[in-house]
């Protein structure tokens, strides 16, 4: 298959899979088989693109010319390749986990769940491969819409209210801010195609750049820069696999991915660096990191704590991108991966705890390590990765970001990273400590590990978190191309 | 000069009457004054050299419209409820509109100015070319039937639509004919028990019908034409219905025939256009109807005027019967 066809295949295949899942809805085993097969084939096909990209190839395909030189077009570049590979791979793991979780919890509407999941993955791949802002925007909206049924899965009034916030903020910011930003870009630049070095240089200068950047950053609500982060805690009403999808696989990653991509390919790193009015972004990201960590510190609910942790971690990526040095850009890309593995493990663990014991609050978790050793071991590894302790993936990305910040003597960024590391430790370590060493409160239900697919999945991702510390060469190589283009 | 004096006189009366219409609390009074208003308007049109329009306004405004208003008033309350709401806003809006219009008048050509642009461009062409191209004396009929025949087709369709609408809303008048005679006699809402109107009516109806035919076919030579003729024909049949009862009137012209008249006239008009198309001309290009274009024009105008007359008569009658039938 040529690279072009592979791109199209990767976009269409999950949709086909969705149809298949819908048709197989009556027979759960068949349905889940279809899901797994679809996910695996997808991951294979996405991975098959990687070597070409490593060699510097940039395959692209135009689906439709819309109007005025705009088109629906896809192409693969290193950042997108990374995101696509991440999303498609984690889908497999997530599917395995979902089987355990959904069955273990006897959820309703399981077919709808798998169908929407497949559509969301297709949309995420679309975001990853988008060749221009228009295409990206299209896929971005599809992603939002297709995840709504997942978030509101439970269907009771409170869930629907939260889901409405989720949808409202994401759609609202994208239409209210992102779309005008895109149109503004098109008006001044005459194109929307992602171009190395940016397309705005020479077309826009002065405070307008800062304003436009603001429209983008806050318009991309999925990146959850404060104050548009509210949807993320709201979305915690969703089943855990969905949270994993939101936090690790697709949604928030699509957000930070888009921000990074806009900074690199629309503004141009150097052009933005030369323009002082864009400098506020670092401050905004720093504020979000610290504030989110402080809020996380005060949470009693495990999933909410993880949600605020995500908000903070996302702004790492934003900040890394905003620091605007080659190393920090690589750090941004790497952090997307590192955080994905870590956070998916954390959510898997939270879900596994819920399935096995129905516990959701932190004080309930005392001594749970003895009942669920595998789960808590994975949780510990992932938490360490969040803090940035070696030998975990989180250390690698933090290293790059710090190095990038040192390159330009950006002390604000350095200070923020150090402070937030302390804060991260402050909210994760007590949990881990209590889980292993405290005694279990009396009257708890007698339980063991969650169903085996769930445990298997979270162990795999925990291993991946560790492995990323040692085997990160391909990712770095891939992303250094990004930098290579920059220099 | 005389025209101006007449105009000023009639127009002043017109304004007074209009004020009377608006002020009258009793709707019946208002309708009566509307009749006067129409007559004044028609007289004014006549003074302003618009004979065809005057005839139409009289037949329609003073005649048919009054009959219809009375028909509706027979089915609804007669008194208007006094109400003062919204008055100030209305006054402001209307006053504003009027001021704007008055502002415009001062640069308009004054009455009868031969230099006015209206008399320079298209109109002289009509007056000059009509004897040559269409060769009928009444230029209004020529413009109506030929130069702007498409508008007139539209006009016929407007009338047809009104007929369709009223029949749709109020029902077909067929039901009256199905009622036992006794039932209607008890209602006795017609004038058959008044000997004098009945005798006089019977006397004049044939005469009115004859007059309608005259207006129909004399339209090319004098004021008149299909529309006026249709209205007068309808008026004659309404008179018949008034003095003999609707049931009798509906036996003379059955509801079915009414529907056929409504649609048939419009179809007749349209088919002239289709025939001209078939003969290789444009829609409603009567030149092709005859080897001599002028004769073709005349033929075309006669036929379409007939179509107009039939539809108008049918529709007005149908509307009258629809209102009348609703009263039972």
């Amino acid at each position, binding site marked *: 298959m040529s690279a072009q066809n592979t791109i199209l295949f990767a976009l269409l295949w999950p949709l086909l899979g969705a149809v298949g899942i819908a048709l197989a809805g009556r027979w759960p085993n068949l349905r889940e088989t279809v899901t797994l097969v679809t996910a695996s084939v997808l991951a294979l096909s996405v991975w098959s693109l990687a070597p070409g990209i490593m060699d510097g190839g940039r395959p692209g395909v135009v689906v439709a010319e819309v109007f005025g030189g705009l088109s629906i077009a896809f192409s693969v570049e290193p950042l997108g390749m990374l995101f696509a590979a991440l999303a498609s791979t984690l889908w497999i793991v997530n599917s395995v986990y979902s089987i355990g979780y959904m069955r273990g919890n006897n959820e309703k509407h399981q077919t709808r769940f798998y169908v929407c999941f497949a559509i969301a993955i297709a949309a995420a791949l679309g975001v990853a491969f988008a060749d221009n802002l228009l295409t990206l925007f299209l896929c971005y909206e599809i992603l939002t819409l297709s995840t709504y049924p997942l978030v509101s899965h439970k269907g009771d009034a409170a869930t629907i209210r939260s889901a409405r916030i989720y949808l409202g903020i994401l759609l609202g910011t994208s239409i209210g801010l992102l779309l005008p930003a895109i149109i503004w870009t098109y008006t001044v630049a005459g194109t929307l195609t992602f171009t190395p070095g940016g397309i705005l240089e020479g077309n826009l200068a002065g405070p307008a750049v800062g304003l436009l950047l603001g429209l983008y950053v806050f318009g991309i609500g999925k990146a959850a820069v404060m104050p548009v982060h509210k949807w993320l805690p709201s979305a915690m009403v969703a089943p855990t696999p969905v949270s994993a999808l939101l936090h690790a696989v697709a949604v928030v990653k699509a957000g930070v991915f888009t921000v990074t991509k806009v900074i690199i390919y629309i503004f141009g790193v150097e052009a933005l660096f030369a323009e002082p009015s864009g400098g506020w972004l670092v401050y905004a990201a720093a504020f979000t990191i610290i504030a989110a960590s402080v809020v996380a510190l005060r949470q009693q609910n495990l999933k909410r704590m993880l949600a605020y942790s995500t908000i903070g971690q996302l702004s790492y990526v934003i900040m890394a991108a905003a620091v605007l040095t080659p190393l920090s850009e690589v750090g941004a890309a790497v952090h997307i991966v590192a955080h994905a593995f870590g956070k998916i493990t954390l959510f898997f663990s939270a879900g596994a705890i819920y399935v096995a014991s129905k516990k959701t609050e932190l004080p309930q978790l005392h001594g749970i390590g003895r009942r669920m050793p595998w789960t808590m071991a994975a949780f510990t590894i992932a938490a360490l990765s969040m803090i940035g302790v070696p030998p975990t993936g989180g250390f690698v990305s933090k290293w790059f970001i710090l190095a990038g910040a040192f390159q330009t003597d950006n002390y604000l960024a350095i200070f923020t990273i150090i402070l937030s590391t302390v804060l991260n430790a402050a909210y994760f370590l007590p949990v881990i400590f209590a889980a292993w060493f405290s005694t279990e409160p009396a009257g708890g239900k007698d339980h063991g590990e969650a169903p085996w697919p769930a445990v298997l999945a979270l162990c795999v991702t925990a291993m991946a978190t560790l492995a990323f510390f040692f085997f990160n060469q391909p990712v770095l190589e891939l992303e250094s191309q990004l930098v290579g283009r920059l220099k | 000069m005389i025209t101006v004096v*007449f105009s000023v006189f009639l127009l002043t009366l017109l304004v007074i009457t209009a004020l009377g219409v608006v002020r009258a609390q009793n709707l019946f*009074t208002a309708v*009566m004054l509307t009749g006067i208003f129409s*007559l004044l308007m028609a007289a004014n049109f006549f003074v302003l050299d618009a004979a065809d329009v005057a005839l139409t306004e*009289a037949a329609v405004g003073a005649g048919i419209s009054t009959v219809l208003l009375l028909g509706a008033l027979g089915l609804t309350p007669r008194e208007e409820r006094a109400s003062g709401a919204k008055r100030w806003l209305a006054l402001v809006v209307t006053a504003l509109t009027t001021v704007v219009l008055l502002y415009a008048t001062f640069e308009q050509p004054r009455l009868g100015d031969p230099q006015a642009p209206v008399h320079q461009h298209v109109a002289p062409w009509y007056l000059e070319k009509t004897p040559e191209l269409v060769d009928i004396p009444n230029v209004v009929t020529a413009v109506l039937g030929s130069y702007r025949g498409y508008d007139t087709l539209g006009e016929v369709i407007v009338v047809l639509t009104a007929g369709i609408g009223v029949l749709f809303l109020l029902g077909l008048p067929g039901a009256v004919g199905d009622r036992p005679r006794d039932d209607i006699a008890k209602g006795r*809402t017609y*004038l058959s028990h008044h000997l004098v109107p009945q005798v006089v009516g019977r006397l004049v109806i044939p005469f009115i019908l004859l007059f309608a035919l005259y207006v129909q076919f004399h339209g090319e030579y004098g004021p008149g034409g299909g529309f006026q003729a249709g209205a007068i024909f309808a008026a004659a049949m309404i008179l018949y219905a008034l003095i003999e009862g609707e049931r009798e009137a509906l036996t003379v012209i059955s509801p079915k025939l009414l529907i056929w008249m409504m649609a048939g006239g419009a179809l007749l008009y349209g088919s002239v256009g289709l025939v001209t198309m078939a003969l290789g001309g444009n829609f409603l290009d009567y030149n092709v109807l005859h080897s001599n274009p002028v004769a073709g024009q005349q033929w075309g105008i006669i036929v379409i005027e007939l179509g107009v007359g039939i539809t108008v008569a049918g529709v007005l009658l149908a509307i009258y019967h629809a209102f009348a039938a609703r*009263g039972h």
Partner: protein
Amino acid sequence: MYLAAALAILITMVLALIRALSGPSVYDRVLAVNLFGTKTVLLLSVVSFLYGRTDFLDLALAYALINFIGVLAVLQFFESRERSNTDEAQGQ
């Protein structure tokens, strides 16, 4: 001379109009409208002569006719009103 006649008719029309506006009863108004109608017919006849276009007498004819029908329609209206009013009265 025509002018004098026309003016006389016009003034009569004014008088009729005053009657129509002042009422007091609906019958007075109908009477006034009828008078107004016949006066319009006369006015048109005279004006035709005044303008020297006697072929427009058709209009006068049409007016006379329409006026008659109008008055009869009004009467029929009274009849049915009367009828329905008494019906209502009896029904109560």
